[in-house]
Structure formats: C-alpha cells, structure tokens
C-alpha cells in the first residue's frame, strides 16, 4: 500500500494533470482566438554506461520518454505561464507564474519560476529540442539530478530589457523567493502545497548585454545568494549540518560566428556550511565550454567540456555524490523536419563520489526530440 508521503507527492501532479487535460479538451477551442499558446516538447533519450564499469551513484542504463507541456496566455497587460514535465522518472510542475507587463520592456512575475541566475536554465528550461546536446552542463543540472545550485524558486521576479543605442540592449532580471532545502543527497524545491516546510530565502540576479538585439549573441553576469536549510536527519552525511549559505557569481558568453557557436560559463561558489558546533567554509568554481559547428542546414557537430577549479576537494560537492564533476563530450545532431531531431553523444564522465577520488565511466546517449504545437 502506498505511504501517505508517496500519495502526497503524487497527488499534486495528478491534480495538475487533470487541470491541464481539462483545459486542453474543453477550454482551448473557446480561447483559440486569444493570445495563448500550447507547446509540447517531447523527447526519448537512451543512455548506456555498460561498456565501462559504472559507479553505484551513476544512473543505470535506461530509455526515458519525456513530455514537457508549456502553456502561455497573454492579455493586454496580464500574462500567465505554466510548464509541466512528465517522464518515466518524474512528474513535476516546473513553472507556474502570473505576470504583469508594466510596459513593453518590463515584466513582473509572481509564482514558481526557474532560477534567473542560471544561464542555460534561463535559455532552454525544459525545451529539450531547443538545446543542441542531449545533456545539460553539470553546473546547470536540476536539483533532482544532483545540481549544485537551486533551479526553482517561488516568489517575485522582475525582468526588463532596455535599448542602449541603435541595436544594443541591456537586459536585467532580479528575483526573490523561497529557495530549495537540502534533503538526503539533493536539493529539494519549495512545494506551494506544503508551506510549513521551512524553506529559506534566495535572491537571484542576472545582467545581460546584447550587442545586436536582433541576433542571439550575448554576454552576462549571474549572481545568487541562497539560504539553504538542511534536513540533517535525512542522511548520515548531513549529520549536525544546519544551514548552507551559498553565494554564487558567474559570467557567461554565447556567441555565433557564421557556422560556429561558442557557449562558455564559469560559476564561483562560496558555501558557508553551518554545523551545530562549527562553521565550514567551502569554495570552488565550475563551468563549461561548448562549441557547435553547423554543417549545412540540418547537421550540427558539437562538443563540451565540464570542469572546475578546486571542485575535487569540495566538502559541499561530496554531499552530492552523483554530481558530474567532469564530462568531456562529443556529439552530432540531425534536424530532419522543421521541429524534429536525432542526436548522439559520447562522453568520458566522472561522478563526484563521496570520497577522495572521482568515479570515472564512459557513456553513450541517443535521443529523438521534437516539438508539437
């Protein structure tokens, strides 16, 4: 018989599923003439690490179908955005926020949103088709995939884009909300249906410069401060750990030259780990460098290196043994219809592990992804 905790965890997705299905079946035709959008991001990815000796914390080989449903509504000044993800491994309300358009350049949002201080996350969210590789950079991983920094906050967010001169623009965003807390071996986002869960505050900020607003090139600075509460009884590794005050500062660039594209992101972490009887200071930097090269209209070859500075000896990262500390990856993608693609990725990967050394393994991934709208 399922436990109460299990039922509580899955009752939210079930209710949201019912609401979304009701909407799609009964309300969508009525609203067809208004500014609303329903987009289905789908993918099936397979993963195999059997040809090396996978460590216990690495994911088992699998085939994972995923459906991400995005719904947006836009009125004169009002806007709503909801995003729900189903896969064979999870079912989660990703974003649920209402917005007020103060002017043509400024949006004020309230609800559950993705952390504004993460570049990749802010760019692709769960739109798997829009990102070229199959895997996300390790610093950008979601909380339940051993991501090292919060991905979901619930609260207030403001973003604005201002023209500087000619085609140049400056975009900034700042948000304040409930940050995740640390449970067992991962961060756990705030649940709006469980307000007594004792989550603390997080503040995120992002500043982006676009030299040509009609193109995608951009560089920027990312900052976050998160007060992460710890459920110390959830794991022996968290014994006597009360809080983690995490500050991150990052820089990123996303640039295209003809057929080439380069994405770079480096994030510095400063963690003050507050134990019952002592404080521990932990700092490191992790980032990635990704290249993409377009071959004709439909093919892209790409590669990425995820690495860091002082991350090998980080006490904080050892609390996330499945965190991918290093990954050197190469891949190719074929876009065979306007919104469908096939991708293959080969990687040499190291999981953080909970001891002194990393656990190395090789992986191969295949993916089909598409968009239906």
């Amino acid at each position: 018989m399922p436990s109460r905790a299990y039922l509580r965890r899955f009752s939210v997705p079930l209710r949201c599923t019912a609401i979304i299905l009701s909407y799609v079946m009964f309300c969508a035709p009525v609203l067809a003439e208004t500014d609303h959008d329903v987009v289905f991001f789908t993918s099936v990815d397979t993963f195999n690490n059997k040809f090396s000796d996978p460590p216990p914390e690495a994911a088992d080989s699998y085939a994972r179908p995923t459906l991400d449903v995005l719904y947006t509504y836009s009125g004169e000044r009002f806007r709503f955005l909801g995003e729900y993800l189903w896969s064979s491994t999870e079912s989660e309300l990703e974003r649920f926020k209402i917005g007020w358009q103060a002017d043509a350049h400024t949006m004020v949002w309230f609800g559950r949103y993705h952390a504004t201080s993460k570049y990749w996350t802010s760019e692709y969210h769960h739109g798997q088709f829009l990102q070229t590789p199959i895997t996300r950079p390790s610093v950008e991983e979601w909380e339940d995939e051993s991501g090292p920094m919060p991905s979901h906050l619930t609260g207030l967010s403001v973003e604005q884009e201002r023209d500087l001169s000619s085609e140049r623009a400056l975009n900034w965003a700042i948000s304040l909300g409930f940050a995740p807390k640390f449970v067992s071996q991962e961060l756990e986002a705030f649940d709006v249906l469980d307000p007594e869960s004792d989550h603390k505050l997080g503040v995120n900020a992002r500043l982006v410069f676009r030299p040509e607003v009609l193109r995608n090139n951009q560089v920027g600075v990312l900052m976050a401060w998160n007060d992460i509460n710890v459920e110390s009884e959830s794991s022996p590794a968290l014994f006597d750990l009360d809080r983690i005050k995490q500050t991150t500062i990052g820089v990123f660039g996303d640039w295209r030259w003809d057929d080439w594209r380069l994405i770079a992101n480096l994030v510095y972490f400063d963690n003050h780990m507050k134990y019952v009887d002592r404080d521990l200071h932990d700092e490191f930097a992790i980032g990635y460098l990704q290249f993409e090269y377009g071959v004709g209209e439909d093919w892209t070859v790409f590669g990425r290196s995820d690495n860091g500075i002082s991350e090998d000896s980080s006490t904080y990262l050892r609390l996330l043994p499945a965190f991918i500390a290093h990954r050197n990856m190469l891949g190719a993608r074929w876009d065979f219809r306007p919104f469908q693609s096939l991708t293959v990725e080969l990687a040499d990967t190291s999981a953080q592990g909970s001891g002194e050394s990393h656990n190395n393994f090789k992986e191969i991934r295949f993916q089909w992804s598409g968009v239906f709208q």
Partner: protein
Amino acid sequence: MSFRTLLVCLLILLPGVVAAGQQLVLVSANECPATEISMLDVRKAYLGIGVELSGYPVRAFRLLGDETVVQLFFQNIVAMSEKSYERRVLSLVLKYGTPRPRGFDSVNELAAALRSRKCSIGYMWRRDADSLSDLQIIKVLWQQN
C-alpha cells in the same frame, strides 16, 4: 508551342505580374496616434521583442494566405530563414511566455485583429490597405521595382 505549354508559362509568370508595381505596406488601426515606425522596431515586434507605439505595447500580426507575401516577410521584414524565425519566436514563448505573432489567412481577418487591439501592426498589399478606410499605412516595407 502548344496551348497547354503556353498556359503553364502564363501560370508560372502570374505571381510576378500580380506583384508588378505593388507595395507591401505596414498598417495599424486609424485610432493609433502613431503615424510611423522604424524598420528596427518592426523587426523587433515580429521577433517578439518589446516595442511601444505612442505608449502602447505593439502586437505584430502576420498575413499567411498569400505565398508571395509570406516569402517577402522572411526576406525583407525579419531577414532570416523560416526555420530560424520559427525557432527564435518559439524560444521566446518558452523563456518569457511572449506571444508569437498571430497569423491570418485573409486580409479581412487581419484587419479585424488590427481594429481589435490599439496600435497593433500587420502587413498587406497597398491595394488592400487603400480599400480599408479604418486602417492607416505607417510604413512601406517593400516595393516592386
């Protein structure tokens, strides 16, 4: 040359004949106080970037029913391939919930949408715009030489 071959040649040339001397113009409802807009702002509006006209947020509408107009839109207004454009606006839906420019199959449907939202913009042939007295031309986007 057989009659059938001649007919095929005429059908192939017909779109060019129809467009000869034509102008593709940008229009908005007469009630919008703005009487002009820069090409940069037109491109921004069709790419989902925030633009204001006389203090009103601009909504951009597309005309899909005329294949020549569709091609002119990608070549002259947004200056990118259809694939790049569709991905760009999809990306903005995902990131900000920005509404994609709505498309209409007929000029009448487009005109009705323009009337319903103050300072929204859309494009059509000049001869169609001239026949709609409650719309004003705020820019010539393309002209057949």
